[in-house]
């Protein structure tokens, strides 16, 4: 995976030097382990800090909204799908983007790594092929990447960019034998009381910092419903019903748009699995409307179209 760093730097330099793009958006290596910082480069000389590894879990599409310049940007499967969604929703124009595609083996779940080393402080992580070495003050352990993928990456069916102007590597074989909705099916089997308990516990730690909302490229409304005062749809304290309302509506706003990039879960400071909301919608849109978000910038999203013979069984 690290091999991509060099290619990214080289590509960014070339694109900037040839003035094919005004800016290039990628990642730089973070100041703490397992954390990379999105970076905007506007000059070839500054492109050397660009970086890529299996901790680039933040969705770069966040940085496209409202831009008017010509942008070079790195995209793996899910990020490229969000770019397609942005194009569909008129948040960016296709010809503003020069998409540098990366076939993605998946991002490593930083929480799983912390758990694996029993909460000992991690000082450095070195990635080598299919493994990575975790180093701390008095330990060094090697793990297999495949076993530590973020849960969304483990079941990813679109590892290759769906949209690109240039690819930095050979496409990976897509995973076809995965069940992306195993966890959702488990919840569906519960009775309503169990479901209520499950979701109340799930969000009980929420501090309403809105990191999930803000890390989501789909959340670009000028005024979010939580900030509306007339009427006020949801209270602002950490009251459990208000918190549930927030998570419910946030998820619903992503209906038919979510690419399951996992950024919301990755950024949550309290480790909440809010994808248990959005994935249900993904599952339903797939089952009812044969739709997966962001696969084609030319196709209208599921809530913007209909079929006369749509699912009608729930209506009296």
């Amino acid at each position, binding site marked *: 995976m690290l091999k991509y760093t060099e290619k990214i730097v080289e590509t960014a330099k070339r694109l900037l030097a040839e003035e094919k793009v005004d800016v290039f958006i990628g990642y730089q290596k973070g100041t703490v382990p397992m954390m990379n910082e999105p970076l905007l480069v506007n000059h070839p000389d500054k492109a050397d800090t660009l970086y890529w590894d299996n901790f680039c879990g933040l969705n770069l599409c966040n940085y496209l909204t409202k831009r008017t310049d010509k942008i070079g940007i790195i995209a793996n499967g899910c990020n490229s799908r969000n770019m397609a969604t942005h194009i569909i929703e008129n948040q960016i124009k296709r010809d503003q983007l020069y998409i540098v595609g990366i076939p993605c083996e998946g991002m490593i779940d930083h929480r799983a790594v912390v758990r694996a080393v029993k909460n000992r402080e991690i000082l450095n992580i070195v990635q080598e092929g299919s493994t990575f070495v975790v180093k701390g003050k008095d330990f060094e352990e090697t793990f297999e990447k495949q076993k530590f993928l973020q849960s969304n990456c483990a079941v990813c069916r679109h590892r290759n960019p769906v949209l690109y102007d240039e690819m930095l590597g050979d496409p990976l074989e897509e995973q076809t034998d995965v069940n992306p909705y195993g966890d959702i099916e488990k919840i569906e089997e519960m009775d309503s009381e169990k479901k209520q308990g499950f979701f109340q516990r799930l969000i009980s730690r929420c501090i309403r910092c809105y990191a999930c909302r803000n890390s989501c490229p789909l959340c670009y409304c000028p005024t979010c419903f939580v900030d509306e005062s007339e009427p006020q749809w949801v209270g602002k*304290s950490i009251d459990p019903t208000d918190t549930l309302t927030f998570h419910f509506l946030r998820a619903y706003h992503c209906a038919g748009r979510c690419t399951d990039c996992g950024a919301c879960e990755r950024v949550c400071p*309290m480790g909440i699995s809010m994808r248990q909301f959005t994935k249900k919608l993904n599952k339903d849109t797939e089952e009812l409307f044969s739709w997966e978000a962001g696969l084609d910038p030319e196709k209208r999203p599921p809530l913007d179209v209909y079929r006369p013979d749509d699912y009608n069984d729930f209506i009296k």
Partner: protein
Amino acid sequence: MTEKIFTKEEWSGALETLKEPYRLFGPVKDGDFHTFMPLDGDKKPDFDYENSRLSPKTIIYPESERMFEYSLDETDDDAHILKESPKDYSPCAIVGIRPCDVHAFQIVKRNFDNPEYQDPWWTEHFESAILVGLGCNNPCASCFCTQVGGGPFHETGLDVLLFDLGDNFLAKALTEKGEAFLEKIQGESADDAVLKAAEDLKQSSEKKITAKVPTDQLKDKVTIELFDAPFWEEVAFACLNCGTCTYLCPTCWCFDIQDEVSGKQGDRIRNWDSCMFPLFSLHGSGHNPRAEKFQRVRQRFMHKLKYYVDKYENGVQCSGCGRCVRYCPVNIDIREVCKLMNDFA
């Protein structure tokens, strides 16, 4: 002042008996991390920890707190008139709190308890608390308390300081409140060898903090020059404008006030707020002095590292706990920003 040594088992036993005179709070393992919780029922504290995810400011300054309550029932004589909500200000003890988080209380006290106005809830909660700190034997790589006027065994603001000496704790009373707390615990008085071991521990721990975060030049910078510095857009680029940094920060104190009505019963509640949110400074007219992301990011750093420095002449509004460094989803590192500001010419 008393210096007592007791085994960790004795300490655990003592905590059981201390539940009577105090509302006890301590770090409890809560899934993947630790949270300060009331030690009631069968909740057991875990002192083998780095630091809690949320800072213990939640005990003194809860994320959401009822301020007033009122009736909206017109048949009540006092309809529409606000009444103070009842609070439990009985003595509480926060055990195992890290010195950086205690330092943070000293920092925010200047805001909540100032010569002109005293915030009643913060002040009362704070005064009801005994702070039983636990020195850090192994500070994290992202900690920088020694750079901002604290240290892994910093005593200021603490009532008792605990040294983890392996099988034993050495407890040092630092105030009268702390003396009273320690009186309730059995233990032997510490001999010179123990005190020497504690001192060595402190020194070796301080040496482990290698981060250099100079703040010495901040005071002398001209506010509007720093405000107009060219680096803010770059610093802010990656920022998502979420509230992680401000909510996890032990020294962030901003809040919002909201009225909530349920039937004929109303409450005025205050909730933590964050300068990262556009609504924080949005005028009724629609004008927003900090409409852009970089302005809000600048506000956060300028407040902590310049405005506070100028206003209180007592250092920066940061205790070096490193939470924002560790948990910022996009790795905006206050240590780096501080360097930029301190070195700005």
